[in-house]
């Protein structure tokens, strides 16, 4: 009797549970799978591209950007601004604000909010990500914007920005998200980083934060008062953190997430063949390179300095590496060979006469021989003055592409008579050493800024170019990079950029390996997702569900 009663109770309980379970309704919900944690959505501190893109759904800027595929350059359009009028020499711009933009407290967006935001972004005590990057503005000694010289308020809805004369100004100079003054001024500037102001308010964007579980997900909910709010807008966006790639892929296949980036090349075809995903390529924003210490005087940890000082040696190394096979075999053609750091997406300034160096082992050997490197002791490796041609190649561990590339480079260079010792380092350790210029050779990559800005990577002044890790120096290249900062006619600018590409391709300050495509998988129930070189998570208010 006791057993029967127990069984009956258990059956009832299971029945209740089963009857009460319901299917998830995802008709007005989109889930985006992210690899990395969202640490902040405060526009002042967003460091990663994804964080910045999500925060721009909460706080709009004066202008937005799009990509013009025909011209091969970014274009801008007004967002919070209703009109943008430049003066003749582009040294000042007159901006009128839309009069239908309101904050959560019901007050209109005014020029005061704009100026306050710019002041915050440039304030040393705030430590915003934009601190010290207002190169075209009148600045105070502490690099904050000189508000008096820069801004001129005509009325609450209209103001002028005055830039330094003869500078290369554009809408990118004032595209920062605008913050509500009435809320942010209540917090001490040095405490803004710790403030949760953005979690409790809605900005001018079409979404606001509904729930934020750190290390887990951020839920955004549609607002009704934004200029981009609409009836067709997706009501809820969830950005879910899934650090493990396999889990992310499984969740995509199982419809738990609708969109995710950085699909491995080997999974692209399989996903595409399933029919329920649309695969899009985000091209030309990232490349990998083999860094070589070009200025031996700055090498800190190697006794064998000067190994890569000669451009001819660097060229020989480039020619000895079969980069095409890596693109074909590992990237499965989701990438392309490169000759210089100007991405093919910038087609308007692309120098088509500069081509990637071919894989030519014999030519590479001839160059090395002409530079005095010969296999005098027949051990299979080149030597000069009793020193073997060998170096340590450092790379960040945990990145399959770089691990594969490192092995291929080692094998290719062995065939050319160069001994390469591979050293995989934990990423944090690797990048610390890399920025401190402690490597003689390393494998890394850069993401290309939009608009195109080459100076922080290739100028010889380390203060102006923290990205010039290989300590590359070329007088003419410096001249061009300095000139590009100034106001120039478009044809002159294009000519200079093309000349720079020719110089850098000849100098080979690093071995330019390949451009890497970012494969984005989108569930076919999702429409209007534009994947451009600018971003994947952009204009989410235009996304629709089938």
């Amino acid at each position, binding site marked *: 009797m006791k057993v029967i009663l127990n069984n009956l109770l258990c059956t009832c309980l299971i029945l*209740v549970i089963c009857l*009460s379970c319901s299917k*998830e309704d995802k008709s007005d919900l989109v889930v985006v799978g992210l690899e990395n944690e969202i640490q902040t959505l405060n526009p002042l501190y967003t460091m990663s591209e994804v964080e910045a893109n999500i925060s721009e759904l909460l706080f709009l800027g004066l202008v937005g950007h799009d990509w013009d595929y025909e011209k091969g350059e970014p274009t801008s359009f007004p967002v919070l601004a209703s009109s943008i009028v430049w003066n003749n020499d582009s040294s000042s711009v007159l901006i009128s604000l839309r009069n239908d933009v309101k904050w959560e407290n019901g007050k209109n967006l005014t020029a005061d909010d704009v100026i306050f935001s710019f002041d915050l972004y440039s304030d040393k005590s705030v430590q915003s990500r934009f*601190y*010290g*990057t207002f190169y075209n503005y009148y600045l105070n000694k502490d690099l904050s914007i000189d508000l008096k010289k820069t801004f001129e308020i005509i009325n609450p809805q209209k103001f002028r920005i005055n830039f330094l004369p003869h500078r290369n100004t554009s809408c990118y100079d004032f595209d920062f998200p605008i913050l509500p003054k009435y809320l942010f001024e209540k917090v001490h500037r040095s405490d803004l980083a710790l403030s949760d102001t953005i979690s409790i308010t809605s900005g001018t964007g079409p979404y606001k934060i509904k729930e934020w579980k750190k*290390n887990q997900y951020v839920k955004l909910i549609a607002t009704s008062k934004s200029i981009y709010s609409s009836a067709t807008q997706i009501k809820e966006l969830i950005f879910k953190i899934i650090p493990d790639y396999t*889990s992310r892929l499984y969740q995509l296949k199982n419809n738990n997430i609708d969109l995710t980036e950085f699909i491995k090349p080997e999974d692209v075809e399989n996903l595409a063949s399933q029919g329920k995903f649309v695969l899009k390529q985000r091209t030309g924003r990232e490349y990998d390179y083999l860094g070589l210490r070009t200025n031996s005087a700055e090498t800190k940890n190697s006794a064998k300095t000067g190994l890569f000082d000669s451009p001819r040696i660097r060229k020989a190394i480039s020619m000895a590496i079969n980069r095409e096979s890596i693109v074909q075999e590992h990237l499965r053609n989701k990438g392309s060979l490169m000759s210089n750091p100007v991405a093919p997406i910038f087609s308007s300034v692309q120098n088509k006469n500069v081509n990637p160096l071919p894989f030519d082992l014999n030519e590479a050997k001839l160059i090395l021989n002409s530079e005095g490197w010969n296999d005098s002791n027949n051990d299979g490796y080149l030597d000069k003055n009793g020193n073997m041609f060998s170096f340590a190649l450092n790379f960040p561990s945990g990145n399959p592409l770089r691990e594969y590339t490192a092995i291929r480079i080692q094998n290719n260079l062995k065939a050319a008579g160069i001994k390469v010792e591979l050293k995989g380092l*934990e990423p944090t350790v690797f990048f610390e050493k890399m920025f401190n210029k402690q490597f003689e050779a390393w494998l890394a990559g850069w993401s290309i800024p939009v608009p195109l800005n080459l100076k922080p990577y290739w100028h010889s002044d380390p203060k102006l170019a923290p990205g010039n890790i290989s300590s590359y120096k070329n007088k003419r290249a410096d001249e061009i990079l300095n000139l590009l900062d100034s106001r120039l006619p478009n044809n002159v600018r294009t000519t200079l950029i093309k000349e720079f590409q020719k110089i850098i391709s000849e100098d080979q300050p690093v071995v330019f390996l390949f451009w890497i495509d970012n494969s984005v998988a989108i569930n076919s129930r999702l429409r209007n997702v534009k994947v451009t070189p600018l971003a994947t998570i952009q204009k989410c208010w235009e996304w629709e569900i089938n």
Partner: protein
Amino acid sequence: MGNKLRLKKKWIEILSIFFSYVLTFWLLISMIFILLRLSPGDPALKYLSPQLNSHLYDYVKSSYGLDKSVFEQYYLFIYNLFRGDFGISYNYRVPVSTMLMETAPFTISFSLVSFLMQVAISMWIIFYVHKHKGNWLEKSLNKISLFLYSLPTMTVGLALIFIFSLQLGLFPLADVHSTNFEELNIFQKLFDLVKHLTLPIITLSLPGIIIFYNYLHGNIEATEKKSFIKFMIANGFDKNIVFKKHVIPNSINPLISILGTELGILLGGAVITETLFGLPGLGRLTVTAILTRDYPLIIGCVFFSGVFVLAANFLADLYKLKHDIQLRENFKNL
């Protein structure tokens, strides 16, 4: 007078154990602090970028207090620790205590549920095996227990996901609950949680079940061979009663001593399980903190895990002190 003396001695014993744990804990925290400062890697590294102004890196480093000497940093760390202040997470820019409060409850309940499952399932297997001695389960467990124990958590998790989520579609792939959790009624919520946590709990519990089973199985066999058990059975006592009331209680004592260790293993396993199944716990937070060199958060996580494991060991020691005659005698002779 004799009672008072015994009570005093007992308290001295407890306090001496307690202070040895406090010392262990201080050493643990100090070692972590020193090792973090000595290890390569820069917490402000993300501020080193061609896109950012190089001064920003210096300001941020200074605001983290990393421009001070290690000794000064250590003094401030201990001073703040006594005030219950773990500092601010470099990554999340919120107090570390807030991050711990958000994540620790999940990991504790997750680990405790897993622990209870380990004990319950291993006990059930023990009873079953005892009842059906020499059956297929006992034979196969004896053969495959080492294999099951040596399986990495990651492999077990991935295999379970592949079979039960992807192929059979019985369980969700990840997360602690569905996205529409708030809209569900109490039964649906319960079912949703059970559905989401079944695979993670199995992943985390499997090695523990094998450990407990092996320990208990060995202990039971040893106890059954003891004279008093043989005597009782020879005198006609019911075998099942002897097993439940005498064999099990006498076999379970040594198990208490591995409780603390097992909790440590559980927390270690939780790191992988939480990452694999996307669960919002302390393990996943610790991994993120270590990878980004978020010193305050790493120390906060270690502090919490340390307290958890040491408290479990301390309780186990107190239990043993009360029940283990030999240990009590050792203390008396000190």
